[in-house]
Each structure stands twice: as C-alpha cells, then as structure tokens.
C-alpha cells in the first residue's frame, strides 16, 4: 500500500487484491459467544473409577486410566480408556450358585467383566459457567462420545468381545490443570456363550479426576 496504483490488474492475493495490507477489512476472525476461553484442553490424563450397576449377577467396580487428545474446543479423541473390573457378586448370584450346586452338584460359572479397553470420539458442544451462590464461578462442559470397545469376560464367555461404547459426560474444572469428570455410558457388545450369540448392553457410570497438560488457560 505504500506504492501508488500503477497497475490495472489486481495483485495475486484474492484476499487482498490491492495490497492494502492492514487496511484491508479482516473478516477472517469470527468471535463467538465465548471470546477467550479460560479452560482449554490439549492432552488429558484421567484416573477414573466406575461401576456397572445393572448386571444382575455381579456389579463390576472398575478402576481405569484414560488418555485423551483434544483436537479443538469441540472435538477430542479419547485414544484409550483402559479399565480393570473388580466384581462384587450379587445376592441373586449367590442364591443361583447355591441352587445349582444343590441341584447338579456342579459349581455355577457366570461370565464377569475382567477388563475393558475403549477408544472414543468425543464431541463437546456445550461449554458454560454457573455462579455458585453468586460468589464463585464454576466452569463446565458437556460431551457426547462413541467408539469401539474391546472387552474380556471370564469363562464361560469365550475370548475377547467386541462392542461399542456410547455415552455422555460432564466435566467440571477445579483449576486449569485439574477437572472432575462424570461419565454415563452404555456398552453394547456381542455375547458368545453356550453356542449362542446375542447382543448385550451394560450401563456404566464413571467418576474421575483428570489432569490436563499442554493446553492454554
């Protein structure tokens, strides 16, 4: 722009065809509802504890680790969430075992979840804040996730099972580096047992603490 017009042809850059530089109206930046987000995630490591509360025979209490890469403020990939299950037998199962032992003399074996590894795409459409008693502000985000899962169940279920894990989550920040997570998910998998193949589903609830590193705040 420091030189006068001396050409009838516009400059090569179609975004600024007359070389006005800083004077050319810049419409590339669009400011949304939140202009400068306080909490941004980049790499996240989470320690999660959860439970599968709906199985009638054993409540699997899980402990797990998850690693997530946040590609943007709206999209992330939980590369891996690995959980190990500690099963607590229900009263129903104990009664069943006693009945089976009394009737057939053989111990009853029911499949239990042993471990679960999942990888999920995470969409984070909601980001917000709430005033706690009007004195403090808490920031949170809500997410939806889905992805394949690999699980291992004890005998008589055979081998590894493949499934799909979908769910929703809520994150509440404690600080730029730490946040609390609450996830509600549904694991759908194929159960092969006794020659029969049938789909099964299991709701799971997870709580955890997440550490973030590499992101801005």
């Amino acid at each position, binding site marked *: 722009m420091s030189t006068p017009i001396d050409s009838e042809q516009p400059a090569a850059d179609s975004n600024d065809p007359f070389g006005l530089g800083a*004077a050319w109206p810049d419409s590339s930046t669009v400011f949304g*509802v939140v202009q*400068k987000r*306080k909490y941004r995630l980049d790499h996240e490591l989470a320690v999660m504890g959860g439970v599968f509360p709906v199985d009638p025979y054993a409540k699997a209490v899980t402990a797990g680790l998850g690693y997530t890469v946040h590609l943007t403020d709206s999209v992330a990939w939980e590369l891996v969430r690995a959980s190990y299950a500690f099963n607590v037998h229900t009263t129903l199962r104990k009664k069943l075992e006693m009945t089976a032992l009394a009737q057939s003399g053989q111990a009853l074996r029911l499949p239990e979840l042993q471990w679960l590894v999942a990888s999920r795409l995470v969409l984070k459409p909601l980001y917000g804040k709430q005033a706690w008693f*009007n004195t403090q502000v808490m920031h949170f985000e809500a997410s939806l996730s889905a992805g394949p899962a690999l699980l291992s169940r004890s005998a008589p279920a055979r081998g590894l099972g493949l499934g799909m894990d979908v769910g929703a989550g809520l994150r509440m920040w404690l600080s730029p580096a730490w946040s609390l997570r609450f996830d509600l998910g549904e694991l759908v998998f194929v159960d092969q047992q006794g020659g029969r193949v049938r789909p099964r589903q299991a709701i799971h609830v997870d709580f955890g603490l997440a550490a973030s590193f590499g992101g801005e705040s």
Partner: protein
Amino acid sequence: MKARLLVIVVGLGLSWVGIGVGPGAVAAAPLAPVAPAGQKPAASSGADADAGSVGPPAAGADAIDPAIFTTAIEDYYAGRYADAAAGFWGYVHFGDAAAEQYEWSQFFLAESLRALGMYHAAVQYYATVAKTRQRPEILPEALRRLETLARERPISEGLVYDDVIYDSDFGALPQELVDWVGYVQGLRDYQHEFVAWGGRHFAGIGGTSRYRLQADYVMAVHALAHQRDDAAVTMLGTIVGSKVDDPVTKNRAQLALARLLFDLERFPEAQAAYERVQQISLSFEQAQLLLEKAWTAYQGKDFRRAMGYLHALDAPSYERYFLPDAFLLRGLIFKELCHFIAAKRVVRAFNSRYGRTLAGLHARAPLASLERIVNGATQEGEIARRTAFMKTLANERLLVDRYDAAWEDTGLDKHLRRLYDLELREQRRAFERAFEGEADAVAKELLVADEQMRLLDYEIGLDIFKRLKISSARQTKEEALEVPYDSANVYYEFDDEYWSDELHSYEYFITNRCFDTAEVAP
C-alpha cells in the same frame, strides 16, 4: 476530549449523512466514455468489447435480431441468469439505441446481474435506465431497485445520487420513491448549504416514511454543525422519541444526543443517553461507545462503572482497535484512587502497545508502514466504509470468473471486469487521498496521547511521594461489596474469560486507597 467528541459528533453525523442511506455508499468512479461515433462494435464472438462502455453503440449499426431479446427473457424467467445476461448484453452492445427493446434490455441486464450477485454492475445499468428515461414505464422500477440497493448495500454514491437523482425532476412517482428522491435531493442541498431548497425537499417526505427521521437527522446535524446546540438537542430528542419505526436512525440520533450532552457537560443526562444506545455487533463503533461511556462515567465520578467499561475493551474482539485514550483514562482512574502501582502498569502497557509505532513516528517512517497507524486510520468513518465497499467490489469481480463460459462469446466478462477494475481503481485513488489525512490525524492523536501518558507518569510519581500529616490523615470509608446469594441478578466474577454478552455489564470493585486530607506538612 470535549473538542474531540464534538468533532466526532459533527464528523460522524456529516459523514453518515454524506454517505446517505446505504451502509457504505461512496463516491463513484466516473462512467467510462462511450465509444466514439463511427466506430462499429464487433458483432462476432470473441470480440473485444469496448471497455467500460455503458452507452449506446455507434449510429449505423445493423439492426439487432429481436429473437435475442426474446430468448434472453425466456432465460431470465427460467432462472438462467448468466445466459440471460449474455443475451441482454448482446442486444445492448451490438444493437441500436433505437431498437424496440433497448431500454428493457438494459433493465433486465441489471436484473440478471443483480440475481448473480454483481450489484455494482447492476447499479450501473439501473442508473443508466433511470437517467436516460426513454421508457417512462421502466423509470419507477429502476428507481425502486436503486433505492433498495442503496438501503441494503454499499453503492456508488456519486453515480446514483449525483448523476441520476440530484438536479432531476422525475415527474409523478409512487410516494415511497418520492420520499427517497426528496431525501437524497434534500441531503445534497443541505451539504451544499442550500438550506431553503433542502427544507422544501424534506417537507415533501411523508410523516411515516422511513426517510422522515433520516431527514430530521440531517437537519439536526446541520444545526449542530452551525453551533445551534440547543436546537440540535431538541431535534435529536424528537427523533429518539418518534413513533416512526426506524430503529437505526433513532439509535444514531441517540448516540449523537449522548455525545452532544457530554460536550455540553450535562454528564448525568449523557450517561442516561449512552445507556439507551443499542450496540450489538462487536465492532469499532461498540468499542468507541464503551470508551465514551467510560469517559462519561469518569466525569460523573463513577470510577467503578468507568473501569468496568474499560475492562471490556480488553476483550479479544476489541484488541485490534486503536484506542490510546483507554490507557489514559485507566491510568487517571487508578491515580485518582491512589492505586499507583496499577497506574504505573498502565503506563507500561501503553508503551508496550504503542512503543514500536511511536519509535517509527519519531524516525519518520512512512505512515503506511506502521500497522497501528493504518488500523487507526481505517477503522471508522468514510474511509472504513470505502474499504468495505472495495472489498464488496473485489468479491463481486471474482464472481465474473464463474461465468466465463457463458459470456466469452459476447465479451460480457471482459466488459464487467473492466467495469469493476475502473471502479476499484478510482476507489483506491480516493482511499489513498483520504488515507493521508486520516493517518496524519491518527499519528498526531498517538503523539498527544504519548505526551499525556508521560505527564500522567510524572504526576503519579509526584502523588506517590506527596507528604501528609499522619495525625490528620484518615482513609476514606467506603461501602464494601455485598454479593447476595439470592438475587434477581447473577454475579459472574471475571476470571480472564470474556463472554460477548457480558461486555456492557462489567463492574469494577476497587477500594479507594487515598487518604481523606490533603494537608501537607511544611
């Protein structure tokens, strides 16, 4: 600040009035000359269209086949606007001005170009139809299109307002067009100080017309420019309170009224007027409004509110705007409240933001090479609208490439490119002329702000070491912040996160650290 505000009020009013009805109507490039008589335009495909020619071809051209017009009309009503434009252009360019459908071809060429998004080219042809008026029945439609485009988009003001409308008598027109024409003619009369004529034109505008309040606004700005402040206040107040549905003009009048009241040092009324100004977009105008509200609050000793407005200016949406006054005001307020470290930090922030630019100014670097000067010079007023118009022209010019295949035979693509290039070149020239003056003004403003910041820095130093008698010193009492947990209001404490809807609602709670007495020990 007062003188600057007055200049802003008058300048903004006049520049907005000067622009007229559209969001960015600016002076036009002159129409390219008509092909000299005797030169027969080529009728075969691939002919080199006479660049810029919008007028009739030379006398003696062969009669044009009427089927061209018929085919083009069919294409137009079938939605094939590119083909229709080629047909109408062919009829206009290769035919005779006496051909039966010549004016209709020009009109429908404009319609087709408008449907394709080439509004400037469309305006050229609508203006031609309105100016020549060979077919009186087309005139109202052409004017109606021009009025709509002028209202909704930036247009070439000189082409439409000066060449077509001003000094013209159109005879009987529908009332809405009479209002528009009367407004434009009155506007130009006022700009040329033909007040009586302007008044007559404005008197013909209907009471419920969308141009009624705009005409009143012109008269109010004229009164202001001639130092009739009281009359201007009354007129602006009438516009604001009018029942006519024109929120844009009312909002402009509200802003002008607020600025005028500030200049008249009627600060409480100015503050109330500023609160009623509606600003939605994250624009320079909103940033400027926040700064003016901050100054008004400062004058009313409401430092918390003033700091709240200044706090919003740190939002990312306003970072790029040139507002050195914001630093000055912030430093003044911190100094008034005896937060000296914070005041010093403001001075350092100013130096950090503008230091390189100031160094460039002192080194006599070309103003166009200093980015902050360029930003400041082009962020408001007619020059900002001119660059926005140029961007529109550049985008429309790119549209021509889409229709190369359809237009190559008739040469319409080459003609349109030439049309846009001429206009862009002229706009660029006007831009460069305007830029020199604007950049000079911005550079001076920055140098003045720098001087004031240095003075402030010095005064802060004096205040830090001001001597005080301990026995008579007592710290000012002030009410503490009370945040009710159950309230009709929601309190979001700021934590480095800017939400766009909060930018006008910040309140800054800061204690006054000054001592009550200024008695100094000998």
